[in-house]
């Protein structure tokens, strides 16, 4: 370690200053748009659905129409227009408060970036399933592998294995049916999550939810945790905007109004400034 003044090497920033170098795409004004080596208007417009284009933009992968349909159909399971659900609740509040639909879309998406549900939960679920999968294939049995996971109330606390009110997940069976009908056979991760679920039901009364199933399916399709996070970020949008739309026309403070005594107080008693 020296005490002499150092001259910082700023070349990494000098090279990027005033310049963008990218392999992603380019708008060529008056002509067309390059997207990952393809022409957007001359080629992709005819070939791809919105979902296929979205996956291509985000990941660079050209997915099959069946996989695009699977991704579209699973949005049915993440966008219930029920304003009790947290992200929709915020959408209703934004509407009732007179915010713009873009604000509602943004805040609903942000709310669903949650370790309890939504896109972040799916990211965490993929990472957890991958970790457990590697441990099992590395020779650990279920108790050994699960010992590395967080536990709560005497059971492994795994993302993708919780449900509000511990009610059965109504989405699982329709999701399995759609997967079959679209011609997808269970891959190694779907088989793995089924085995994990069977173990957790037998020993801890915990079944998988739709997020675990969907994440395992997407892992079978070759998507990483980061890609799943990015692909699923806007899944709640239509439910949020449905609630926004309904409550936009309600009277001011008309969505679940709170009386002063509806908020519980647990802090210090009244005190005075000296």
């Amino acid at each position, binding site marked *: 370690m020296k005490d002499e003044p150092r001259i*910082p090497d700023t070349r990494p920033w000098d090279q990027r200053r005033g310049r*963008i170098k990218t*392999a992603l795409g380019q708008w060529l004004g008056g002509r067309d748009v390059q997207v990952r080596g393809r022409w957007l208007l001359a080629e992709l417009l005819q070939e791809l659905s919105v979902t296929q284009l979205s996956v291509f933009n985000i990941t660079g992968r050209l997915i099959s129409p069946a996989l695009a349909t699977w991704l579209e159909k699973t949005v049915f399971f993440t966008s219930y227009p029920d304003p009790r659900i947290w992200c929709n609740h915020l959408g209703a509040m934004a509407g009732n408060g007179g915010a713009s639909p873009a604000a509602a879309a943004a805040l609903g998406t942000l709310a669903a970036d949650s370790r309890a549900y939504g896109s972040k939960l799916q990211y965490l679920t993929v990472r957890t399933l991958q970790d457990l999968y590697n441990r099992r294939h590395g020779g650990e049995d279920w108790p050994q592998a699960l010992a590395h996971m967080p536990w709560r109330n005497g059971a492994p606390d795994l993302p993708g294995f919780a449900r509000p009110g511990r009610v059965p997940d109504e989405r699982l069976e329709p999701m399995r049916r759609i997967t079959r009908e679209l011609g997808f056979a269970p891959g190694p991760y779907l088989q793995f999550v089924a085995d994990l679920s069977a173990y957790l039901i037998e020993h801890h009364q915990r079944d998988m939810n739709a997020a675990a199933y969907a994440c395992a399916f997407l892992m079978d399709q070759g998507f990483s945790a980061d890609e799943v996070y990015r692909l699923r970020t806007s899944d709640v949008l239509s439910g949020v905007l449905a609630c926004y739309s309904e409550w936009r026309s309600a009277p001011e403070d008309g969505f679940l109004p709170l009386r002063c005594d509806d908020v*519980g*107080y647990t802090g210090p008693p009244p005190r005075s400034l000296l």
Partner: protein
Amino acid sequence: MSSTADRPNPAFATAICSEEACPDNPYNARQRRLHGYDVADLWRQVGFVDALLLLFTGELPGPSQKRMLEVLMVGLMNPGPRHGAVRAAMLAGVSKSAPEHLLPLGLLTGSGSRGGALEVAASHDYLSAHLAEDPLVRARDCLLGDPAPGFGTCHGGPEPIWQQLGADMVAAWPDSPVMAWCDTFAATLMRGGQSWRAPGLVAAAGLALGLGPRESLGLYQLLIAPGVVVQGMEQTHRPISSNPLLPDAHYELTSP
């Protein structure tokens, strides 16, 4: 009108704020208390920074705590047009985005783990984990390995303004063990070309004040907010052509 008294109304519980309803309207408050103090007494008798620290910590601050936060608040109130949060708000402002979105989108742009709010939380975790160690030894380890979150370099070297702000925060609250530890830590890092980064300053302040990592993260967002707002709003008054697209000559598309 039917009674609503029997309707369950799921709501929050809080230890921060209590409200006393008007006798004739249970939806309106006639008095609000923050950690037990009447907010009207606060606005009449204490300053903004005192009330802010009460809000965050639950108690009114001592003079050193208050002075340290004032130093930090002024130091961070505008992190400058090159800061990601401010730059985002400026770009959105000049492109005529709805003005009410400039602050939220700026704060979101500055929410990340590289110089943003998430680095504050990471730095808080780091400092909490190592505060019992010798800061000299810890700093030498950092110089040999990975930089500590909240410390290191900016564009290849220490940014002097953050060093000065850190030194002035320490001077404002010299008997804070956290600030003293960080001062030694940063000074040792400086011998290897590293120093404070802005998130580290807020993490240290938050830890010294007894805040948790999440509260410190939020404090950072709050402190940079004035600069995000004013720099973003300034741009809304300029023509969109004042910030043109990068010309094609400076845009290089490579093979995928």
